[in-house]
């Protein structure tokens, strides 16, 4: 029976041998690897773009590899310590400081990507990709927030148009909210989503409109520990506790608020332009998009902008780096941005393209485009931690009935520590 044990050894040995065979035969020229998260229209568009790029650049091959969205960051991070991973990588802009700070990305070559030109030609939020005075990655497309509203429900409630001010918004939400015999909400006036886009809404829209800048201009100091910001937070949490027009986690899942809207169970939601496609596909009622309301009619508009960027990793060196830079240049060209808008439905990062009258007047895209000039992209140094801080503050008020000012002061102190830790580590580098 020694034989059986021997077979076990053999199986393992064969496995090792098979596994050890190199997967791809050597290719002449340069083969670049490109990573992004899986989204069908993005993957297909990228395949088409790669084909186009390869035709224009003989000798360069690009291999696209994609991973599930929810685990994308983890997948990328896991590959780095093994020296594996892509030459060109697609990242959420809010992760950039972490990736740059650790030396995984290389700065974009200034001759091919002159900062002055980038800032002249792109929408203002792009400055969030600038770090240590240089650009480290660039987007093809950008996104902003707007108010999606269910026009059927609006009609039913006798409301003629979407709200222009937050006061109107509350009044509308009250009329739109439907309750059952027990007083339980069956249709939300507002599909509240602290963990969705609302924490961005609070930071960059409500705080600013209530007169509190969330951060100092260099992004290193938290400045929302003010009475004005507390009032804004209180206004938001009142939607749940006082106005009772919204229920947190009304629908389950990470995107429950959007599901509720699509199901006709939430009359309004604040969502990003990236949601247009899925709402278009699934909402079976008359819906519309309106600009985010303001504090007062004609008051200061504000918005939150965000984007996914393509950056060059330190894996791309020498000739590879030149090839990768050429590919990045191609991905940020006007032609690519136009195709991306057509195929993926994302707003071009270029000011000129976004100003296209056809786009500006589009009833769905228009409100998103109109807010580009005043869309702020928060400079996150540790996105998930900073997000949790604000979510906790909201929950402190809603669940523990803490005073908004006290909750916000606590949040500001916690977030300041995150910023300080980050910059302290940068300084020792």
């Amino acid at each position: 029976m020694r034989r059986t044990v021997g077979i076990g050894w053999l199986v393992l040995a064969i496995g090792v041998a098979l596994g050890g065979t190199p997967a791809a035969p050597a290719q002449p020229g340069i083969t670049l690897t490109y990573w992004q998260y899986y989204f069908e229209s993005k993957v297909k568009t990228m395949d088409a773009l790669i084909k186009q790029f390869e035709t224009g650049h003989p000798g360069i091959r690009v291999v696209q590899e994609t991973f599930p969205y929810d685990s994308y960051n983890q997948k990328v991070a896991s590959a780095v310590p093994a020296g594996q991973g892509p030459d060109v990588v697609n990242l959420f802009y809010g992760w950039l400081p972490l990736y740059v700070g650790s030396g995984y990305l290389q700065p974009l070559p200034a001759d091919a990507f002159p900062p002055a030109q980038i800032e002249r030609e792109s929408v203002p939020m792009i400055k969030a990709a600038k770090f240590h005075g240089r650009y480290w990655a660039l987007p093809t497309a950008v996104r902003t927030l707007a108010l999606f509203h269910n026009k059927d429900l609006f009609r039913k409630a006798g409301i003629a148009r979407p709200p222009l001010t937050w006061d109107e918004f509350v009044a509308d939400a009250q009329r739109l909210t439907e309750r059952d015999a027990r007083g339980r909400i069956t249709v939300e006036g507002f599909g509240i989503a602290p963990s969705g886009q609302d924490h961005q809404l609070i930071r960059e829209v409500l705080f600013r409109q209530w007169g509190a800048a969330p951060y100092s201009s260099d992004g290193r100091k938290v400045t929302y520990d003010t009475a004005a910001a507390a009032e804004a937070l209180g206004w938001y949490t009142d939607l749940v506790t006082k106005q009772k027009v919204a229920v947190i986690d009304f629908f389950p899942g990470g995107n429950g608020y959007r599901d509720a809207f699509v199901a006709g169970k939430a009359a309004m939601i604040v969502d990003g332009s990236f949601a247009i496609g899925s709402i278009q596909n699934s909402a079976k009622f008359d819906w519309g998009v309106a600009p985010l309301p303001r504090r007062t009619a004609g008051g200061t508009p504000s918005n939150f902008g965000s984007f996914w960027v393509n950056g060059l990793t330190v894996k791309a060196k020498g000739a590879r780096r030149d090839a990768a830079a050429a590919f990045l240049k191609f991905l940020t060209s006007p032609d690519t941005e136009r195709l991306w808008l057509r195929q993926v439905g994302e707003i071009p990062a270029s000011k000129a393209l976004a100003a296209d009258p056809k786009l500006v007047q589009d009833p769905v895209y228009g409100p998103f485009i109109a807010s580009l000039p005043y869309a702020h992209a928060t400079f996150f140094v540790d996105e998930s931690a900073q997000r949790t801080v604000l979510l906790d503050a909201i929950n402190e008020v809603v669940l523990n009935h803490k005073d908004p000012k006290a909750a916000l002061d606590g949040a500001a102190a916690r977030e300041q520590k995150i910023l300080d830790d980050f910059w302290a580590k940068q300084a020792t580098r």
Partner: protein
Amino acid sequence: MAPRTAVPTGGAPARAAGRPWRDAWASLVLAAGGIPIVFPFLWMLATALKTPQEIFEPHFWPHTPTLANVREVLLATQFPRWFGNSLGIALGTTASVAFFDSLVGYTLAKLRFPGREVIFGIILSTLMIPTEMLVIPWYVMSARLGWIDTYWGIMFPGLMSAFGVFLMRQFMAGVPDELLDAGRIDGVSEFGLFARIAVPLVRPALAALCIFTFLGNWNAFLWPLIVIQTPAMRTLPVGIALFSGEAGSSWHLIMAASSLAVLPVLAVFVLLQRHIIEGIVLTGLRT
């Protein structure tokens, strides 16, 4: 002459005594308790048959049941490929675990040798490190050995499991020493004692181990996610994760794909469970 030893096991006294009203009572309790237990599962199946609009309606059973979700999963995605990958990986690891874990479990339970407790302790302690901390070293190892994006790379961390060793050791401990000694006197090799005497006696536990190992690998997400690079290598859980994105999750497809992934496993369980239950084992000893 070949003496045959019969070891009837699984002695629930009621079965022999046979009091019908008690049995009926037990069935009733189990059936009543089973309703809330299967309810979430049925909900998943029902959702799989609903249109994307209907899945958020409060009613349980679809008013207009549709196979559109199932069709989309089967035809418009690489589901069959994911299924095949998962099946091969789960079967391969299960075979390896069944063999090695029962051998190690037997050795630790029935053979006396210096260091036995220490070795058991070491193996058991490997259960106490969360996978989350192991994937980076595994990935580094795989990169060095060229295992990334290979079936072997997906499988290798699961080829043996401390869980199985622990389970089999506990059950092997119940194998009577007299049987093994009798076998030794009869000249059965040490491996033969394991394979022909001990293993048949712990068949219920071995069947359970096979089911658990298969399921564990069938549902494994984290390590396959990390080690897989190309679409052709994706396993079921990694493939199903593609239905969730920044613009929301396609719950109708997630439920359809999950249902399609579960039903074959459930069928296998129904087939295998007889082995868990039928503990009456005849062990033939030959001279």
